[in-house]
């Protein structure tokens, strides 16, 4: 065993000396490989953590949200719907919700105006989200005015700013009194944006939703599980943003591996020929190259993964912010809770380290089994 270990150390010493003879090329290769692993791992960690956090944060969202559609477009809930829904067996609680969007031309940002279901906001005051506080320079007891869509100016006093840790869900919120909301948007009395329902038996949610669709054919029930599924698919690696980023990184990796597998340079062939001529066995040549590929890919994997973790969870993913922010003016500042899927890490390891080692091994095996004289003359 000791002899075997010492033999491997000597092979590694020779491998490292060989790598040092082409320092610039090999350092460049290490840098590119590390960068690829960094991109892949960053996307994987970020998307998984966001999915996990969305599931945790939204697990108590309304069980059913009922919307009304007119010609396929979202329309207001008219009076009478709440009473009709209340008569359905299994419905425990119904709540008409009032919320909508407002475009602030001062900062060119969109806000979500909302009336809290439990009230608690005095007329003439509003509670704002942390991003609004930041972008508009607001604070408690400040005044602010908004011009409604019919041209009328409404002034409010900031009663409170929502807590910063909640920014991921409350960044753009403006909570207000119901009377103020109806006056601002000229919302007719008795009309609501949609209805939130709770069901007595969670196993009956789909049945209740079916009954709603039958009783109110112009309505669209949205279940909580569908809300969670929307976010699960949004940050799934198989779709959208994640697939785009992963595809580019995987393609770059495939090109790197293909370039390695497509053949050896004349210098590398000569080196192998000389080793065979001075008495190296084929197995030793292959072991040497395996160590080369293994050390390089393992170092790149470890370095890339650690850098990706630090980027996503310690520095709050600054590389993804421009991508996610798009044209938004308000963007939440949030710190994701680390959620690492061991299976994904293992998959990343097996699909970066082993393919690269295989890509290194294929051309080496061909050269190692060929006559040294023929290899050196090639």
């Amino acid at each position, binding site marked *: 065993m000791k002899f075997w270990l010492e033999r491997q*150390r000597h092979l*590694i010493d020779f491998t490292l*000396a060989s790598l040092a003879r082409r320092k610039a090329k090999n350092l460049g290769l290490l840098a590119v490989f590390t960068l690829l692993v960094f991109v892949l791992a960053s996307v994987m960690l970020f998307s998984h953590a966001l999915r996990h956090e969305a599931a*945790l*944060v*939204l697990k*108590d*969202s*309304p069980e059913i949200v009922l*919307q009304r559609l007119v010609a*396929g*477009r*979202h329309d207001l809930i008219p009076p009478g719907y709440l009473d009709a829904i209340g008569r359905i067996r299994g419905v425990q609680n119904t709540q008409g919700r009032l919320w909508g*969007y407002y475009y602030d031309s001062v900062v060119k*940002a*969109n806000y*979500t105006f*909302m009336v*809290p*279901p*439990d009230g608690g906001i005095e007329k003439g005051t509003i509670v704002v*989200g942390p991003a609004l506080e930041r972008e508009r320079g607001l604070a408690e007891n400040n005044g602010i005015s908004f011009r409604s869509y019919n041209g009328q100016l409404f002034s409010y006093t900031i009663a409170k700013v929502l*807590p910063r*840790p*909640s*920014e*991921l*869900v*409350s*960044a*753009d919120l403006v*909570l207000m009194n119901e009377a103020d909301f109806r006056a601002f948007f000229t919302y007719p009395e008795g009309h609501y944006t949609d209805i939130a329902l709770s069901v007595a038996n969670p196993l009956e949610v*789909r049945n209740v939703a079916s009954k709603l669709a*039958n009783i109110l054919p112009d309505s669209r029930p*949205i*279940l909580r599980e*569908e*809300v969670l599924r*929307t976010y699960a*698919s*949004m940050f799934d690696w198989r779709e959208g*943003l994640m697939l785009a980023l992963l595809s580019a990184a995987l393609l770059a990796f495939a090109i790197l591996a293909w370039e390695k597998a497509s053949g050896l340079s004349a210098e590398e062939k000569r080196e192998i020929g000389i080793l065979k001529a001075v008495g190296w066995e084929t197995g030793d040549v292959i072991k040497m190259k395996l160590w080369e590929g293994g*050390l390089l890919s*393992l*170092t790149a994997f*470890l370095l890339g*993964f*650690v850098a990706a*973790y630090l980027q996503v*969870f310690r520095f709050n993913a600054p590389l993804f912010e421009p991508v*996610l922010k*798009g*044209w*938004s*003016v*308000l963007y*939440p500042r949030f710190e994701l*809770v*680390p959620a*690492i899927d061991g299976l994904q890490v293992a998959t990343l390891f097996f699909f970066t380290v082993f393919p690269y080692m295989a890509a290194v091994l294929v051309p080496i095996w061909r050269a190692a089994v060929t006559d040294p004289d023929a290899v050196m003359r090639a």
Partner: protein
Amino acid sequence: MNSRPSAVVFTAVGLLALAFGGVFVDAAWLSRQRAGDVSEMSALAARLGLTDLALFTEARYTRHPSQADLHSAFQDHPLALEHFPSGSLITPPRHEILVRATASPD
């Protein structure tokens, strides 16, 4: 005395492996640290009946993707292409068709 190259590499790879293990320890620690924030967010979402994260505030169908109808992304005119950057990133809402007898999309 010069150390062998393999010793240097083993030390470097060993340190990286330690850092890799440290990632999982740090992840567990940060999870405990930030659990309070998640609880606070969850409580606010439950109190206000929130259904979406405030990640993409460019347009209404990106701000509330789970509540959006399928027409709002193309609201400007019938042949309008998606023009908000985040609209290209997010997928349409995943709502099952409840009335299985029909093929209506929404």
